[in-house]
């Protein structure tokens, strides 16, 4: 016999099943290429193009060995990427943190216009800017230099980072700074001892976004760098030449590029949720 209570419970269970199914499907659609790349990178050369694709195979690390040991291209590319993304992140923070604070707290002429401009500059398609950037860098002799690429990457990361920092600073109650002022702290002391420690989480998240943006960036890197300075997303294409396509090492490198990003994103997720104003204001 079915009572109304058990019908409702059954309905709830059915809804939960549907939800879970939808969730898993979405995840799978997103994850499919990633899984494909990971699997391919561990497949023996002969297994890669079998049809139907092999789901069970004996894994091998030969492609990783080839990518990292046989050619110096990839290791150098990773080194370049680390250097470019690291410096881009550092410089971005040096600009975006104080700028975000100013936008969040200080009223000055054209504040809204300026912050809006920062946003629309983000909307311009990068492909449209590549010619002017190329000219600027070639005129200033900065093609194939780290400085040039970092400068261009910062044009991508800075506006967004400022916006991100603005939201973190706006979340802080102004009473925190007012309290510090009454307590006798100078604006600098207030910023470094009260405000900044409270938004470390936000700074961390901003840093991660800037780093990933620069780390992943391909279009500018491929045009503006040369053999000395090319980053790993560019370097990876040395495996795909007109003569042959080395899918194994290519995917192995791909996994190596993705891995830190995915790990960092998982870490950042926790940071973002935690929020850093914990307990600053009412419970």
């Amino acid at each position, binding site marked *: 016999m079915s009572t109304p209570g058990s019908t409702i419970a059954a309905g709830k269970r059915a809804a939960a099943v549907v939800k879970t199914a939808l969730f898993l499907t979405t995840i799978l659609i997103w994850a499919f290429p990633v899984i494909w790349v990971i699997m391919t990178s561990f497949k023996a050369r002969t297994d890669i193009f079998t049809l139907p694709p092999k789901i069970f195979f004996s894994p091998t690390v030969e492609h990783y060995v080839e990518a990292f040991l046989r050619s110096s291209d990839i290791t150098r590319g990773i080194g370049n990427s680390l250097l470019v993304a690291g410096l881009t992140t550092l410089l971005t923070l040096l600009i975006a943190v104080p700028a975000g604070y100013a936008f969040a707290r200080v009223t000055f002429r054209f504040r809204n216009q300026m912050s809006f401009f920062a946003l629309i500059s983000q909307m311009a398609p990068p492909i449209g800017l590549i010619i002017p950037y190329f000219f600027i860098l070639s005129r200033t002799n900065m093609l194939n230099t780290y400085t040039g690429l970092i400068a261009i990457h910062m044009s991508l990361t800075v506006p967004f980072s400022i916006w991100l920092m603005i939201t973190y600073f706006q979340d802080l109650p102004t009473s925190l700074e007012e*309290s510090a002022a*009454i307590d006798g702290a100078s604006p600098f002391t207030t910023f470094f001892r009260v405000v900044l420690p409270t938004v470390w989480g936000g700074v961390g998240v901003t840093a991660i976004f800037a780093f990933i943006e620069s780390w992943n960036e391909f279009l500018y890197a491929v045009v503006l760098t040369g053999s000395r300075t090319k980053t790993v997303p560019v370097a990876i294409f040395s495996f795909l030449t007109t003569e042959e396509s080395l899918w194994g090492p290519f995917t192995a490198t791909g996994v190596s590029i993705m891995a830190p990003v995915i790990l960092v994103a998982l870490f950042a997720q926790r940071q973002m949720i935690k929020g850093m104003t914990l307990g600053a204001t009412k419970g």
Partner: protein
Amino acid sequence: MAEVILRNVCKLFGKVPVVRDFSLNIADGEFLVLVGPSGCGKSTTLRLVAGLESLSSGEIYIGDRLVNDIHPRDRDIAMVFQNYALYPQMTVYDNMAFSLKMRKVPKREIDQAIRRTSELLRIDQLLDRKPGQLSGGQRQRVALGRSIIRNPHVFLFDEPLSNLDAKLRIAMRAELLELHQRLMTTAIYVTHDQLEAMTMGDRIVVMNEGVIQQVDHPETVYDHPVNLFVAGFIGSPSMNFLDCRILQNGDSLCAATDGLRLKIPAGKQARVQSYVGRDAVLGIRPEHIGLASDPARCDCLAGFTAVVRVVESAGSEKIVHARVEDHSLVARLDPHTRLKTGETVEFAVRMETVHIFDKVTGQTLM
């Protein structure tokens, strides 16, 4: 220890006046409460005293010093914010030490001051915790501790209890007053809760739309409100207001409205004599309406019949909503009164406590 004087203080945000011609002398050691509805400019007034907002015009003195152009840190004040504004990344100890460190007080003295203050506020067990690990009441105490630790001349409180639950609020209210009696530091306390104002203030300032309505001792404000606004704002349930007309009735006066004809006590007639034939507003506090059958109410001067609509039992009292013609009235009765919804009851009003207001200006006539 210091008195605080505000003289013709005005504050505009852009073109909008938020505090208007505010003049007040706050005595040394006084506990003054600013009360008024949301947005009436209480916080702004407090922040002007703190120096967190700049004056548009007027003068503020703390002690005998004109502080108009003095930075908040040099005004010798301490402020407790509604959200406490504890530094989230610092321990309770460091929160309390911060202002002393900024003033370059030697470490040993800071330590002693913190021990002393934290014992006084019973937070000495919490010194190593971060604000996020404290309950609301504990945060409140830490915020208090942070402000009293450097012995300021004036305490400024902006709705410090409004984030606490009802029970804790009442407990902290008493604790705050006790603390004030101990320290006797001048305090300005902002709240929108009229009950909090009534119970805490040596004097209360009722504000509306940036203007002081009345400044006086709580009982005086309650018993003798200067206008309709104050009469309606102070007291809960709030005063009953009835549009009425003043009529001459032989040699006595009465306030009349449909279904009600209340005789004005002889001693007070002179005050409304000039209003005969004109409209006015009658104000009756709920506790001044009783049952006609109740012997304790025999000094009543006027009676009326009303239909009971709702009866709320609050344990210590019964709040009765009744209807006379088109008017609804609220009465506060003895908790043991037995009344049923729909019942028709004889009520009586103690007329010597009734107020009459000018209908146009809202000024109190009697």
